[in-house]
């Protein structure tokens, strides 16, 4: 028998993220929204009870969503369904794995359950995506078992400045690593607080060993294309779609802008008459910096 199942769950999980590249992952709160997202061309949806803008407005403790609500969305669409658990809350992650979620987002959008430790993601069969503001955070999450990285951005603000800052920081630090001498990598590993092998990978390849999406504050087709031109593999859109005037049209326009992110004429056309964008909050107007959670 030549057939042999190979045990390489982590590779398979990284590869699912590779299949999502060039796509848009949309936050949805109901099966109806999930269907709108799928019809607009979303490559996956993030099922959550409240989108980040509403979590921000409501205050209080934000937790994993009701499994019944997540299952409703799993039944509504054929594309991958992701869901968020709190940073460090490995039991919420166990529950999400039990309902066969396709990807878990250990997310700073929810209230952290642990202010020191992240989840040991290597223990899970389902993949994890985690947020990062810089290369050190990205590599630490990968070392813990994350199969995909996204910028943290500042969720629920409609302000793209932090996602830009984080993407630029990660890219700049990777460029710096590629320029180091081999014998300088040990010190770099110490500074980033990660194993030498991860630093060596970035040094050799000039990129992360996993897919890297942009997230946090993306509200327009131009925002999405900006993140793609800055080197993102794809884009998460949270509050930006269903907090806007015409979600179906805006969602489709963002999907097309991500595919043809260098075609300004097309993106200009796509940006016409989209209705109201979500009302943004500037980063200096907000009380709570979610990106400060989980380092």
């Amino acid at each position, binding site marked *: 028998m030549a057939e042999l199942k190979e045990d390489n769950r982590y590779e398979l999980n990284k590869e699912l993220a590779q299949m999502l590249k060039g796509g848009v992952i949309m936050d949805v709160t109901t099966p109806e929204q999930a269907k709108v997202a799928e019809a607009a061309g979303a490559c996956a949806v993030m099922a959550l009870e409240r989108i980040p803008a509403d979590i921000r407005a409501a205050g209080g403790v934000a937790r994993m969503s009701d499994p019944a609500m997540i299952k409703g969305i799993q039944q509504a669409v054929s594309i991958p369904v992701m869901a968020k658990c709190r940073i460090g809350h490995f039991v919420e992650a166990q529950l999400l794995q039990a309902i066969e979620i396709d990807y878990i987002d250990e997310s700073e959008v929810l209230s952290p359950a642990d202010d020191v430790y992240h989840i040991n993601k290597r223990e899970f*069969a389902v993949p994890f995506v985690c947020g990062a503001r810089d290369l050190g955070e990205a590599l630490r999450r990968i070392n813990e078992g994350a199969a995909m990285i996204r910028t943290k951005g500042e969720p629920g603000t409609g302000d793209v400045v932090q996602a830009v800052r984080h993407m630029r920081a990660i890219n700049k630090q990777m460029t710096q690593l590629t320029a180091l001498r081999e014998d300088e990598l040990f010190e770099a590993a110490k500074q980033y607080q990660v194993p030498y092998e991860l630093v060596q990978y970035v040094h050799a390849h000039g990129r992360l060993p996993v897919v890297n999406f942009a997230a946090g504050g993306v509200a327009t087709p131009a925002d999405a294309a900006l993140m793609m031109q800055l080197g993102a593999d794809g884009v998460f859109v949270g509050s930006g779609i269903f907090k806007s005037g015409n979600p179906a049209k805006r969602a489709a326009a963002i999907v097309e802008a991500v595919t043809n992110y260098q075609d300004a004429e097309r993106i200009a056309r796509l940006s016409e008459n989209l209705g109201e964008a979500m009302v943004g909050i500037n980063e200096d107007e907000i009380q709570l910096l979610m990106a400060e959670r989980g380092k």
Partner: protein
Amino acid sequence: MAKKTIGVLALQGAFREHEEMLIRLGADYREIRQAEDFTDDIAGIILPGGESTTQRKLLHATGLFAPLQQRIAEGLPVLATCAGLILLAQKLSNDSGAGLGTLPVLVRRNAYGRQLGSFASTAPLREIGDFPMRFIRAPYIEQVLQGDVEVLGTYQGKITAVRYHHQLAMSFHPELTQDGRVHQLFLQMVAAA
């Protein structure tokens, strides 16, 4: 004679992995992101993995659907992996959406379930031999709808790879491996076309 150019459909998904394989094999390629990219000199087309619903939507939005369908029907060699197989299939057993429909097979989407059902294996492929196969939320072929569709591979009784004249399609991802033999077979089909 000038080298032939392979088109790689680059709307969404794992198209870069196919491009890296083509580079390794010394083939020329162009990314096809909109109708203007799909010129007459394209001698073969690769439909990559990704989300088939997304790709289908973008085929229509970019105006690529009709010209691509027409040229494949007229004999343009095509290599389709995973989502690409779903786009080519004449019929889907669990999805009402219509793809290019040039390949007479009945395909089941997400046939092995969600991501927890994804797996890797090594199994024989006709004309190639044992081949590493990576199934990511993969479909399989429930049935071939015409007698002249050649079955190239099966896994646990389900059809995972077929060839129908100039169309080569599979439910797994040769582009995620270091093994270039499937791409080589496709390049031979392009050269012979």
